[in-house]
Structure formats: structure tokens, C-alpha cells
């Protein structure tokens, strides 16, 4: 692992840096500009708890009629061993999450059981004691911002649509859609790889696949900053990838605007085999890696939306989705 990382550092430095003018020409949105011009301006602080606490998100989603993975139980206060076991004992597959975890931290996915042991999605086995400790850690605030005491959610494991099976290694791909003032502006699929250790974080080596908003087809794929054509582990070509039920998925993302009231929003969506797109979580500070995955800067699209007439900002969800799909068609590079 360490050896590989050194190679990765050398890779990073070898290419040198590009001039800020070049990035500016490409319309790349930087971290500072995102924080000041978009997050601070369009995201009300008082609405952050809706997305920062996943239990709140779930509640709000239910009210707004947005589909989410089924919540099995939530431990608001430190739970006794008996209570935790009561909840997880009858379950075959489940996910344990901190309600206020950030950056995908503290998510434990159990994909099956073998006797007394629980199988993680990566294949390794853990015991009930390990799960209890994990629950304890979450309660103590190990994964929450600022170490505040947290709540624990037990969620049903999504029955993933097999369409992505060949595009992901040891993990579950999810789709990130950036929604700006209700208009979807960019989307990507995150596929875990062997080197990302089953995680869907791009900086850990997951593959980012840019998805054309107009069609739901892949248009660009990147791993560790380099463009690729095939999944490094499964060797599947990204060229043929098309997300089924794309319109419904984008519509679900766009309707999160009404649900959260946040102007600059990242929605993480998974595809369930039966239920279709489900909102996994929403993010008030979505990262910028989506630009790399798409090979396109965000700023022009955001400026375009900002420049729309007042009446365009009062449109209904379907109209907004149709508008985005028409305007933000991507150029295919795969």
C-alpha cells in the first residue's frame, strides 16, 4: 500500500502544475470560490441540519415523497448490547451508519452472515462484538464533525441494480448529482476499485465516471486523475455504460431542492433493483472531483443558471429537469 502511494505521489508531481489562467479558461470551480460564491451565498446555515443529519434527511425525504433506503432502527441514546442485538439479530444484510458522519466515514456494510460471524461487503468477517464497538464509537462521536455525540442508524442494505455489478469491485457504485438552485448541473458515477479498498472516494482510487445529463450515458472516466476506458479490475469498458431510469433519477435529485431548500447541493443516489433510484444522502458541501470525472468545469453551468430570469427559478421539478437535460448535454470522450 505504501509503495503504491509513493508511486502515486511521484505521478502527481511529475506532471507539474498548470497555470491558474488555464484553469480559469476551462471554467474550473476552485475550493475557495465554491465556498464563498456558492455555499455561503446559496446555502442557508439553518438548513444545514437537514442534510448534515441523515436521520433528518430521511424524515424530510419521507415528507417530500422521495424514496430512501429503509430505516430499520435508530439508536438515539447509547444503546445496550441487548437492544443492538435485538435489532440486528434477525437481519441478514444491513448497514450501520452514524447520522452525522462526514465523508462516508463510519459506514459499516454487512452483506451476509456465516454462523455467528458477519460478512462485510469486502468479504472479511467480523464478530458481533466488533459491531457493538462500532455502534459505541459512533455514539461517542468518533465520526461526527467536531466529535459531538452522535446517533446510530441501522438501514436495510439496498438491493443494488445488477447493471453496475461489472463496474464496481467490492463495493456499491452510487451516483452523485450536483443540483444548483433546483437545476441538475452535473452528474457522475463513482465505482469502487481494488485500490480504493471498496470505497467510492475518488481520492482513494475509485473511478469517477462522468454521466451525460441528457442521456444517462457515460461520457468520461477518470481514475486518480488519469483518463481510462476500462474498469481497472473488471476490465469492463465504460463506453457502453448507461444508467437505467435516468430521468427518474435526475428528477429525484432535482426534487431534493424543494426538500432541503439548499441552493448548492450534492445528492448521492443509488439504484435499487425494484424500487429504482433512492436518495442515500444529500450534501451541502459537495466536492469538486465531479469536474475531474466529467472533464468539464462547473463554473460555466453554474453561471448559466445564475443568469436565468427570475421566473425560471419558480419552475416545477419536471420543467427544470427537462431544461437541464436539454442544456447540459455532454460531449462524449469514451
Amino acid at each position, binding site marked *: *500500500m505504501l509503495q503504491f502511494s509513493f508511486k502515486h505521489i511521484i505521478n502527481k508531481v511529475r506532471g507539474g502544475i498548470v*497555470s491558474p489562467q*488555464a484553469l480559469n479558461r476551462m471554467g*474550473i470551480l476552485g475550493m475557495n*470560490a465554491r465556498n*464563498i460564491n456558492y455555499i455561503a451565498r446559496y446555502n442557508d446555515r439553518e438548513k444545514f441540519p437537514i442534510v448534515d443529519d441523515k436521520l433528518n434527511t430521511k424524515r424530510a425525504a419521507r415528507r417530500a415523497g422521495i424514496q430512501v433506503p429503509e430505516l430499520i432502527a435508530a439508536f438515539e441514546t447509547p444503546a445496550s448490547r441487548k437492544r443492538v442485538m435485538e435489532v440486528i439479530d434477525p437481519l441478514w444484510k444491513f448497514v450501520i451508519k452514524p447520522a452525522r458522519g462526514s465523508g462516508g466515514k463510519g459506514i459499516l456494510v454487512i452483506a451476509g452472515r456465516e454462523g455467528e460471524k458477519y460478512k462485510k461487503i469486502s468479504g472479511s468477517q467480523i464478530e458481533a462484538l466488533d459491531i457493538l464497538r462500532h455502534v459505541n464509537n459512533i455514539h*461517542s462521536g468518533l465520526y461526527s464533525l467536531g466529535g459531538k455525540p452522535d446517533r446510530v442508524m441501522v438501514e436495510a442494505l439496498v438491493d443494488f441494480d445488477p447493471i453496475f455489478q461489472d463496474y464496481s469491485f467490492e463495493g456499491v457504485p452510487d451516483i452523485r448529482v450536483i443540483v444548483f438552485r433546483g437545476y441538475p448541473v452535473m452528474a457522475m458515477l463513482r465505482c469502487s476499485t481494488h485500490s480504493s479498498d471498496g470505497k467510492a472516494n475518488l481520492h482513494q482510487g475509485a473511478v469517477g465516471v462522468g454521466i451525460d445529463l441528457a442521456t444517462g450515458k457515460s461520457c468520461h472516466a477518470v481514475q486518480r486523475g488519469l483518463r481510462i476506458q476500462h474498469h481497472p479490475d473488471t476490465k469492463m469498458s465504460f463506453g457502453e455504460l448507461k444508467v437505467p431510469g435516468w430521468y427518474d433519477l435526475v428528477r429525484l435529485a432535482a426534487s431534493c431542492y424543494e426538500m432541503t431548500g439548499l441552493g448548492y447541493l450534492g445528492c448521492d443516489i443509488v439504484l435499487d433493483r425494484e424500487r429504482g433510484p433512492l436518495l442515500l444522502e444529500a450534501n451541502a458541501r459537495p466536492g469538486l472531483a465531479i469536474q*475531474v470525472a466529467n*472533464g468539464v468545469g462547473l463554473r460555466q453551468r453554474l453561471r448559466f443558471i445564475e443568469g436565468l430570469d427570475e421566473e425560471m427559478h419558480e419552475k416545477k421539478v419536471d420543467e427544470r429537469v427537462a431544461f437541464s437535460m436539454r442544456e447540459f448535454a455532454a460531449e462524449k470522450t469514451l
Partner: protein
Amino acid sequence: MSPRVQVYVIAALLALIGAGLTAYKHFELGFPLLPGEYRTVWTIEAKVGFDAEGGPVKAALTLPREQRNMEILGETFSSSGFGFFIGRENDEYRAVWTRRSAEGPQSLFYRLDVYQTPGAALEQPLNLSTEVKKPFLGAREQEAVRLAIDSLVKQARERSSDVESFTTQLLFELNDDGNQDRNLIFRHYADKSLVDVALLMLATADIPAHRIRGLYLEDDRRRLDPEDLLEVYDGKRWIVFEPTSGMPGVPDNFFIWQRGGKSLLDLEGGRNSQVTFSVISNDVPARDVSMRSTRDEKEALVDFSIYSLPIEQQSIFKLILLVPVGALVVVLLRIFVGLRTSGTFMPVLLAIAFIETQLLTGLAIFILILVLGLWVRFYLSRLNLLLVSRIAAVVVTVVLIMGVISVVSFKLGIEQALTVTFFPMIILAWTIERMSIVWEEDGPYEVVVQAGGSLLVAVLAWWVMTNRYVEHWTFNFPELLLVLLAFILVVGNYTGYRLSELMRFRPLVK
């Protein structure tokens, strides 16, 4: 007003106030902008010596008054056995020593520290007497002298246009050995000095004048007698003359002790009185001079500042005032460079610890504690403890490690490692906890990146904070913190790219 404009307005105001106060302190109060500036402070000692006659004794010494070109930094009096007070008499301060009975030789001392402020003009005293007392020269034996004086005065008057040039001409004549009139006068007044004679002649010419007593400031001079200058009133202002050269203006290093007025020393109950001076110069840090010279006036800026605290607290503040500088380094590195650190301001705390421990020792101790702590933490994670007790256990471990490091290094004779106690233990424990989570979740590579980033920021912050200019400015001009605050506010508005993004988004530029 949009928030952006507000930020710029506030920042501009803060920067103006900060820079203005700094400029005031530098130009008006004389605080040096650069460290290591030295000023010359003269210590002048006046020794009053006399033989007491056995009865009550009263000695009154005229003290120098405030003058614009010389700043008096401090005075001390020594008066063993004598009662002492400072009295005010005719706009003059006099040190008065008194004693019921004394016999034999006596010595009284008055010592003052003086700092020469260059370039300041001599103030014009409005209250000095301009009364002219014509000398009595009517007696028969004085006929020749009177004629000689009249002739010199007449000659000087013909060759001059006003009081200033008249005085210069007169002094030229009095210094001219070949002049018969002059020689006659000096023979007559054999016991009088040049200034005495000049005063007499000026009085004849109806020009108000008096003597200035003082001394030339030259290093390491002992048993100096006071020297005299001449001051002349031209109807509008007082002009000082150096009597031997006849040139107007106070000589550069002349310290004025007494201007006009009566005698330098009044003595009752003693004989053979004598006032002698000695002068020594010291080079003193410029800041100390400013501090001492403003102390008396109780300059609000200085009085309500850190300098009014006890020395011990001042040294603590010296460190605290460096924290904003460290924070600025963190701000710059995060906003402009985009370095990832573990805990936003943890590197500043590390940098402060480095200041106390020295850099290399600090780095070694930090890495040692981090590695040992992580190792212990990995074992603890297998014991299924609650988070709070686990971190508390790490705190205890960190303290134990620090204790062991201190004792072992002391036994080995590495005294520097004793400074280990300056490390913030709780912060270290949390860092270890965070790092171990990062290790579990993101792998050791991320641990190295974050720990390395934190260390890099800490070392840079340490480097800036130990810069002697930065140390000097933060401590002597805490107002500069307002400028720093303004800068941080403005930087908080930066929407450009970070250095790391130029690398991160490189693949997007074809």
C-alpha cells in the same frame, strides 16, 4: 452594503488604525521599527562638595529643567544623613539638602540619565527676565575701562546690523588677543570669565542677556566644571551663543543645566563649595529608552498596554502575541496552498511547543510520541473501550511517554529533551486518536500525508514565529495585530485557485 464591501471597509479601517498607531509609536514615542537598535544614554553625575562648618547646613542645587532636545529618563539623589526635597523657586527646580549639624568635608550626589533627541529646537522661554541692569562704571579709576568698553561696543555696533550680528562681532573682539581695548578690560576684570565680561558689555549696550550653564556630553569625563554659554534677547526671541567661537546656536552635545536665573549652588553653613560633573555614555536598546521616556508622561498607549504588566506576564504575552502570526500561516497555507492538516490550528500549538523545545528536539519528540501513542492506541482498540476512556487512556500514555523521555534523556545527559513538557498533551492524545481512525479508514498513506502536512505547517509557523523581526513587531507593536486581522479578513474573500488545485485539476486542461 454587500458583505464583501463590508469586509473591505472594515479591513481598511483596521489596517489604518493599526498602521497609524504603529507610526505614532515609532515617530512620536520613538519605538524602534527594527530590532537591535541602540540609543546613547548619558549618565550625568553632579557632585556637590563642601566643608561643613559644624552648624546647620543647607545646600540648594539648581536642577536642569525639561528641554526639548534632551529627554530626562530618570534621576537619583544620594544624600546620606541629609534631609532632602525638591523645591520650586522662580520657575526653577532646586534639590535641597538639609542637616541640623555637620562638620568636615561633605559630598552630595545628583545623577540623571539623559537621552539626546536629535533635531529638536530649543524652546523659547517667555518668562525669562529681559531687564537690563547697567553696570556702574562712574568711578575715576574705571575711566579707562569705561572708554575701552564704549569703544568696543561702538566698533561692534558699526560692524553689525542687528542684535545677533552685534553679539557675534562683540565676541570676536573679546576673543582677539591683539585688541588693546580688550586686553585692558580683561586686565581690569582679571577674576572674571569671558562670559562675565561679555554680559557686562551687553548690558552696557542695553541688550538683555544672561548666562547658560551646562556641560558638553563626552564619554568618560570626570571632575568637569560647568561651562557657560551666552543667551541674548533680540527683542523677539532668545539666541544662544558659544562665547569662544561667537557662533549662534547651541553646540551639538551641550547639555543645558541652568538657563538664566541665579547661582548654580547656594550653600549655607559651609565653605569651599564646588560642583563638579562626570559624564558616562551607555548604549541602551532603543525600546528601553522609549519606555523610560514615556513612563513619566503616562502615555495612554503605553500605560494601557502589555508593558504595564509584570515582567513575568509580559513574557507569557510575548508568546501569546505570536499565536495570531501562526494562525495567519495556517490561513495562508490552507487558502492559498491547500495543505491538509489534522486539526485546523493544531499545527500552531505544535509550533509554540517547538519554540520552547527547539525545532529538531521538538520534531523528534513529537514523532516519537506519535508513533508510540499510535502503537498503544492500536492495542487499546482491541480492548473494546468506550471512546472517552480510550482517549483518557491515550492521554495517560502520552504523559507516561513524556515522563520516560524526560527521565531517560536526563540520565543520558540530553537536557534539551526535558522541554518535552511543553507539548500540549490533550491535543496530542486527540491527534493520536484521529490519526488511528484515519489509518483504519483511509490507510497509512493518509496518515503520513496528514501528519506530514501538520508538521510542515507547524515547522513553517515555527520559522515565522521565531523570526526576530516578527518577535519584535508583535511584542512592541501589538497594534499590528489589527493590520494582521485586516489581512486575514481580506484573504477570507479570496476566490481564486489553491496551489494544490493547479495540480489536482491538471488532467482537465488538455
